[in-house]
């Protein structure tokens, strides 16, 4: 195809090519004699876009983890909820959320413009990046809603869940998000103005989701059979550990986009951000495995998986501020904490959280955010933690942020769930719950052919 090839060279110029191709699908570009280089703006677009794709893919991970750790009779419902979180979440963030979160703000409290993608103007590199940034933020928003899905699984009406998902992505997340991240578009959210640091969202995304999840699990109540009359918890086994395990790996994979992509810049820091992310996940896994082993006698898989996620959630706030050893410390702390928290919530609070969402996202998100105030290394990001400078100021700010987010997310969550309960009802009937939501809410089962029986 030598002729063809020389043709390729001839068609090098983009402009010429575009005319030639008359709207065809792709455009070949070759380096001319004088070298052309990739602009940093376009590099940032490429990087941010790749990261956004990875974060979007995390949706699959959340689905599989939730699905695997619950019973097969609700698997289809869980799938629907997670697709919905992304579908509806993106739409809501498009219409309302982004504006509230990143619009021109009032007193660092709330954004007020940029609704309905209204910031899109005429074509320009700046618009190209803005759109990419918007896309990246939209996939983050969907994540927050998805966390709630896990804690209310197996017993919540699908209609109720839709409304909750809308409220989380459309209001609860973006309003609070503005306080910590409004500065990304030149505003000054009141929390970030105080110095609150949460690089990729241990608190802003995960804890927020986790505390709404807590409100949800409390509002909707435990699954039938979860607690004995004497409040002793019973085990309701997840139906598919390999599925949950695949979900954990997908989340881990996607988390590199979540954390390293939060630079929204193709700069050199992405390498150690990703390394920190990886190390913390590993440390979380090992710590949780050992904790379970010591505490319950055997290294149980579902808790170990929660340990990975705990480490990943924990390092999210500080991935750009921690040294690798700091990341390992955070991961290990979260790995231990998640096991303790799951047991505490299950047996002491008697709140039924089928997948451990409250512990993983709420508790470990908070711990990771506090950890920034302790472990942030001057060699990495711009913050220095207590262990390096003996100063608890940063820790105090972190604590404030953690408390504020808890109050907001849990409070707003409780209100939302109560409102939804009175509007459409939160919970399916006893008979529906026993039959499973797949048949009663969606009209067909998730598995067919397989003999699936639950004998208790």
């Amino acid at each position, binding site marked *: 195809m030598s002729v063809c090839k020389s043709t390729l060279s001839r068609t090098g110029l983009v402009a010429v090519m575009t005319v030639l191709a008359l709207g065809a699908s792709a455009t070949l570009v070759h380096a001319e004699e004088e070298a052309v280089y990739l602009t940093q703006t376009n590099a940032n677009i490429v990087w941010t876009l790749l990261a956004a794709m990875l974060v979007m893919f995390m949706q699959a991970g959340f689905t599989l983890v939730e699905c695997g750790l619950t019973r097969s009779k609700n698997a289809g419902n869980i799938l629907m909820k997670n697709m919905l979180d992304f579908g509806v979440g993106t739409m809501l963030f498009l219409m309302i959320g982004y504006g509230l979160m990143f619009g021109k703000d009032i007193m660092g409290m709330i954004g007020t413009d940029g609704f309905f993608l209204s910031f899109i103007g005429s074509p320009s590199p700046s618009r190209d990046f803005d759109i990419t940034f918007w896309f990246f933020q939209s996939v983050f928003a969907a994540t927050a809603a998805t966390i709630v899905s896990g804690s209310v699984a197996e017993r919540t009406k699908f209609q109720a869940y839709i409304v909750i998902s809308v409220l989380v992505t459309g209001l609860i997340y973006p309003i609070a998000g503005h306080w910590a991240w409004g500065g990304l578009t030149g505003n000054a959210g009141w929390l970030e103005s105080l110095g609150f640091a949460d690089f990729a969202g241990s608190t802003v995304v995960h804890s927020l989701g986790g505390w709404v999840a807590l409100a949800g699990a409390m509002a909707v109540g435990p699954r039938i059979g979860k607690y004995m009359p004497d409040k002793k918890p019973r085990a309701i086994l997840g139906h598919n550990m390999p599925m949950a395990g695949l979900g954990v790996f997908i989340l881990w994979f996607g988390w590199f986009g979540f954390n390293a992509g939060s630079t929204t810049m193709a700069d050199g820091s992405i390498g150690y951000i990703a390394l920190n992310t990886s190390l913390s996940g590993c440390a979380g896994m090992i710590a949780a495995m050992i904790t379970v082993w010591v505490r319950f006698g055997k290294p149980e898989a579902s808790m170990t998986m929660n340990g990975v996620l705990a480490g990943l959630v924990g390092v999210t706030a500080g991935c750009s501020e921690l040294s690798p050893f700091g990341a390992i410390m955070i991961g290990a702390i979260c790995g231990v904490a998640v096991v303790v928290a799951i047991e505490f919530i299950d047996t002491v609070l008697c709140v039924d959280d089928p997948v451990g969402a409250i512990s993983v996202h709420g508790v470990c998100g908070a711990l990771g955010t506090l950890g920034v105030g302790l472990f942030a290394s001057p060699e990495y990001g711009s913050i220095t933690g207590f262990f390096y400078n003996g100063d608890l100021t940063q820790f105090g700010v972190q604590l404030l942020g953690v408390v504020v987010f808890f109050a907001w997310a849990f409070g707003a969550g409780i209100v939302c769930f109560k409102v939804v309960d009175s509007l459409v009802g939160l919970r399916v009937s006893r008979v529906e719950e*026993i*039959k499973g939501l797949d*048949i009663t809410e969606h*009209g*067909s*089962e998730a598995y067919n052919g397989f*003999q699936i*029986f*639950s*004998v*208790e």
Partner: protein
Amino acid sequence: MKNVVAFIRPERLPQVKQELFAKELFGLSVTNILGSGQQKGFTETYRGVTKEVNLLKKLRIELVVQEERLNDAISAIETGARTETEGDGIIYFQNIHGVRRIRTGEEL
């Protein structure tokens, strides 16, 4: 010896087991079945096509008991399995003409 067979709701098994064990009836075999009776089934819709499901998930439990324990067994199962709504199932028993423990070969 008698063979007692009952068809029950899956979610009642724990209660039935509890009742039986309380009466020191430990020998028990449980099978998953699909059954129809007086209880109606339900319909599924898959890709726009409706499908009637008239076989419901039930359990078949089977006990080999001594003649004198027959009534205990039946009443234990009934107590454990009864919800007084359609679908509770039936219970029947038969004569058995010989039973042996495989491990020892002894006649029971």
